[in-house]
């Protein structure tokens, strides 16, 4: 019994000591460990996915690797290594709060609710939700969803908007994109909704891309940001400055071209409106 008491005391002290350690800012953590750990996706081409050669790559990963990591290395005065961990919509905020990762860099939409728990970087991509259907489907947009089975990713902003604004749709939420897409392929659901750019990415990677259409106007606005622990202003300043210099120097647009340009993984020209939106953030 006495030993048990001591054990509890040790645990209690450890629990009290934990917050003190966690108070360490992200910059200090990066400096101490020499690593930046990001939470990212494995099945969201072309933002972050595992490609045919089994490499974990993508547009967002490149932004971190080529803009943020160099800026961080300069800031902490030693080379920083990029470490990638998988995060999904339900796990990403807990991963961040628990210090398991330092930055969420995938396809996370910047929303007011999420801003109460995490801080977001400058927007690095802008898209909106659309629908993916089999060619010839009667579904042409969100107004055709009454009574239809609609797959969505659990924890995504799209699912939330559908539930609130289009309750006639029968929503089926899957934890990840491959399962939701498989359900569309086999007909368990009539359509799959996600951010338009991701649907184009999925279509391009589908066994028969021509069998699928991405339809409808954007029914939501999805500005993608990188998420950080709330209130870590120093780290956020470095991340934002790195993105800003990427926009200013044109490096961002080179990376954009690599993935979305005519010869990229997924040709998707940057529309003038989106470009204006991105540049407006840095006052241009």
């Amino acid at each position, binding site marked *: 019994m006495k030993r048990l008491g001591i054990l509890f005391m040790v645990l209690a002290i450890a629990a009290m000591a*934990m*917050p003190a350690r*966690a*108070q360490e800012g992200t910059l200090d953590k990066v400096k101490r460990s020499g690593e930046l750990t990001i939470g990212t996706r494995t099945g969201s081409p072309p933002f972050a996915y595992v490609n045919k050669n089994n490499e974990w790559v993508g547009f967002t990963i490149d932004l971190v690797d080529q803009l943020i990591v160099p800026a961080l290395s300069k800031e902490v005065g030693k080379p920083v290594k990029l470490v990638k961990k998988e995060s999904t*919509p*339900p796990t990403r*905020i*807990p991963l961040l*709060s*628990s*210090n398991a990762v330092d930055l969420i860099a995938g396809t996370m939409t910047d929303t007011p*609710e*999420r801003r*109460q*728990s*995490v801080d977001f970087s400058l927007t690095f991509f802008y898209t909106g939700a659309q629908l993916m259907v089999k060619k010839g489907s009667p579904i042409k947009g969100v107004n055709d969803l009454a009574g239809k*089975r609609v*797959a969505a990713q*659990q*924890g*995504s902003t799209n*699912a*939330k908007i559908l539930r609130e604004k289009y309750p006639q749709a029968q929503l*089926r*939420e*899957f*934890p990840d994109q491959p*399962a939701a897409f*498989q*359900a569309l392929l*086999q*007909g*368990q*659901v009539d359509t799959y909704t996600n951010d338009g750019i991701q649907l184009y990415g999925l279509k391009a990677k589908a066994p028969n891309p021509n069998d699928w259409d991405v339809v409808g106007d954007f029914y939501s606005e999805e500005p993608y940001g990188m998420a950080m*622990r*709330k*209130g*870590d202003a120093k780290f956020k300043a470095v991340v934002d400055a790195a993105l800003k210099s990427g926009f200013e120097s044109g490096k961002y647009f080179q990376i954009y071209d690599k993935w979305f340009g005519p010869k990229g993984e997924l040709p998707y020209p940057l529309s003038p409106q989106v470009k204006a939106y991105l540049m407006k953030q840095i006052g241009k």
Partner: protein
Amino acid sequence: MNYQFKWSVLWSGQSGHWLLQGLVTTLELSALAWLLAVVLGITSGALRTVPLLPLRAAATFYVEFFRNVPLLVWMFFWYFGVPPLLPRPVQDWLFGHGLEFWAGMFALGVYHGARMSEVIRAGIQAIPRTQFEASVATGLTVFQAYRLVILPIALRLIVPPATNESLNLLKNSSVALTISVAELTFQTRQIETYTAKAIEALTAGTLIYLVLCVTIATIMSRVERHFAIPGMIARTSTPA
């Protein structure tokens, strides 16, 4: 930890409603899957001990095949793998009638049936062989001997491990969220989506599972005592 707790997310907005919906789905899914598991478990568990090789072999195949593949794979199997084997009109009907729930139910029930089967077999094999021989000697057929003598004793013997298995089934029902069944764990994630408060939502889910499981365990220990055969099974753990 750099995290602001806000427990009120659990009772503000729609959270309570969602948790309740999730709880009902979890209970429906688990109850139906449990019935299936019990029927499959008793049948195959008993068949594994009968003196007829083909029946034993079939039951052994069922048990080893279904318990040795992860439950998650079975979820995908029943949801994605089975429908394409059916005629198109049947598929369409299923897709429109809650396929995910039924697929989840079969996945859970068939998987836990295989595990339950081993529990039942252990119960049957704990009964001395002479008891079976004596019942057959009184003129009962093999089927009657199992139905009237062997199984009633075996089922009493296995209440503790069967309770264990049933609680596992209840908790494993959360795997059905991978095929879009909106059960309890799904709903806790839903609350997280809306409020970005994951720890509070998970705590609520954890407590609900805990209360459910403790309640079932308590009921089962009463059942165990109620049906105990005096003199055969110790009523309590204290020495007589």
